[in-house]
């Protein structure tokens, strides 16, 4: 009798623990699937924009000639692009990362406002010359390949 009961308690504990941990896992999986929309490239943001106010990350290149400082001295507006048609206007109020220049890669954290301007709360740019945000590493390689292709077109 007591042996049965002992087994019983062990089993109950194991089941409770499993249920809780599985529950956590499922909850995490569900939340993460929603997060799959967290990182956007400029063309994705233009094609299927997230709801205004939804926090997302936008990664791309700072378009040449697009950085402007507004009159308050602390708000900067620029355009993030994938070097193609997609261009997303971005506004950022804050102190710019040290190596934030036109033509460099950037990851902006923030959300779209109702006018389609991306309001960035935070900019992740290169910390130093060796650091590139991981999300951007492949983009730049990709881009470099494409640009190389374009410049060699017609040379054959």
């Amino acid at each position, binding site marked *: 009798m007591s042996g049965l009961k002992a087994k019983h308690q062990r089993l109950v504990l194991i089941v409770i623990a499993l249920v809780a941990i599985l529950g956590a896992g499922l909850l*995490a999986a569900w*939340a993460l699937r929603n997060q*799959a929309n*967290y*990182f956007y490239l400029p063309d994705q943001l233009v094609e299927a924009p997230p709801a205004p106010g939804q926090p997302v990350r936008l990664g791309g290149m700072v378009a040449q000639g697009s950085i402007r400082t507004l009159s*308050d001295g602390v708000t900067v507006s620029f355009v993030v692009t994938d070097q193609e048609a997609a261009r997303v206007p971005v506004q950022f109020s804050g*102190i710019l990362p040290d190596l934030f220049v036109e033509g460099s890669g950037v990851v902006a*954290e923030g959300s779209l406002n109702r006018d389609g301007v991306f309001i960035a709360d935070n900019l992740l740019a290169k910390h130093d010359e060796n650091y590139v945000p991981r*999300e951007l590493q492949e983009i730049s390689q990709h881009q470099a390949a494409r640009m190389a292709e374009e410049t060699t077109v017609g040379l054959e």
Partner: protein
Amino acid sequence: MIAELGLAALWLCAALAVLQLIGGALAQRRDTASGLAAMVRPAAMLQGLLAGLAFACLLWVFAVTDLSVKLVATNSHSLKPMLFKLSGAWGNHEGSMLLWVTVMALAGGLIAMVEKRLPEKTMQATLAAQGFVAIGFYAFLLISSNPFERLAVAAVEGQGLNPLLQDAGLAFHPPTLYFGYVGLSVAFSFAVGALLTRNVTPEFARVMRPWVLGAWVFLTLGITAGSYWAYYELGWGGWWFWDPVENASLMPWLAATALLHSVSVLAARDALRTWTIMLGVVAFSMSMLGTFLVRSGLLTSVHAFAVDPERGTFILFLLAIYIGGALLLFGLRAGHVREGERFQLTSREGALVFNNVMLSAILGIVLLGTLYPLLTEAFDVRVSVGPPYFNPVGAIFTIPMLLVMAVGPLLRWRRDSIERIKLPIAIVTSIIVSVAVLAALMGDIAVLPLLGLCVAIGLAVASFLPLRGRNLLRVPIATWGMVLAHFGIAVALFGMASDSAFTKERLAALQLGEEVTVGDWRVTLDGVDPVAGPNWTAMEAQVSAWRGSGAPILLLPQSRNFWAPPMQTSESALATQWDGQLYAVIGNRTEDGRWQLRVWWKPFVTFIWYGGLLIALGGALAAIGRVMADLKRRSVRARANSRRTERRAKGFA
């Protein structure tokens, strides 16, 4: 010469670790102790000594800046201050791995020297496990990252150290975390030893407990210090970014917290035997995974300094062997561990089981969130997982856990009833509800900070309830430790909630002499001057801040330019008051000659780190209390034994 001595010591250490493994393994096979088995303890002690020597050699080559050693040439600079030359020894990949094994070898030597409570076979199995883990790390060091490698031609000057790492606080941050990781490796070895020799007893739990407590204290300190460092050094005003490197230290902490509580149940009540072993394996796996995540560079991180995928593969391999091996052993042997004592759900054990399950769930959530970007990468989808995932999902499990933590210590072991602790539950509930109502009336506070505030205040009161009606002078030190640690959790939580609920921020471009307000502070930019340090130049702003009619406080935020390697950083300036911190960062100069200034007023933000310190202090008190109680028990037993022999001698006479 010194470098070669260090390398030789390392090779000897590796050989001793092999001896330790073989000797310990043979001791399990035979009934009589073989000659090799007797060597296990001395081998562990000698290994500790030699690893210490190897690390001393590394410190020496860094102290004298021996530029013929590759590691010194790439990471140090003759102009660097002495403190940073020394901390440079472990501020890089090879050196930090050497520190890892050194601490592990020293810990192994220490248990070989002093631990006499467990059966000798269990000890030998434990030391064999310790040796087995060490072998992997020695192989890693000697094959793929030799810290003593020489250059064919000595460098003329070192390449410097990442200026972000040139900080006194950071000099002691990685070693603290490593002490924690290594303490968990000892707990792991004990778990493996106990599992191998089928000796999962309360005595085993008592032997393992100080190591778990110690590891937990160091991890707590490491995380607290790391968070404060990120807070003032990165200049973003945040103190936790759910960054992979931060998660890498949080996951072992969560596992260690669970282990710490289950080990207490095992020691006091002989229950939760298998679960404790399992947690021992998980906790160490998490520290290995942490090292792997930090060192492999597989994940994006704001703290990504030393990264090398090849080495990551090596650590991944080690990880697979150790975690896979330990889980296999667990699977094979767990069935042989006999069921422990039973208990009712409403009991101290029940509350601790709840705590353990919730902690495991949180651990799972953090683990999945940290690894998820890696998984999706395999399917060519780029994902970043950030606070919008971790905060709400984590809170779902954290809040119930904290609520049970408020009343759990009031429950009795084995069986109890909610009825008996009705009054304290009513008190805590009414505090939580009234704070919630007050805060909701005060204004617009988001849900999570609001919940955080009321749980924190309720918990702060509840954490002292276990002392109710007791003679304070006779409360055991370990109980004080628990009370302080739980109170520390409440304090830290209050700081976090207050920071996210009440922070005021102001960003402006100012002319010299211009004033802005933030919260109830008035802030003036008085001037901006160039200044120079040993290896940097900077623009330094003089900022005065007033509050009411008080005297002005001078803040000196800097924007620094380092030249080896070239890099720009912002040095924030902090003014600490009892009720919060004023935080200032100077930015760039605008085209029309104004300066960007960013100022935060963060009410009670400092409580986050005070809380962390309280938790660590509580853990340390608990460890001291337990060790002292053990020593006392030992001396009492020894005295009783000697009295008995005396009496027997008299009787025979």
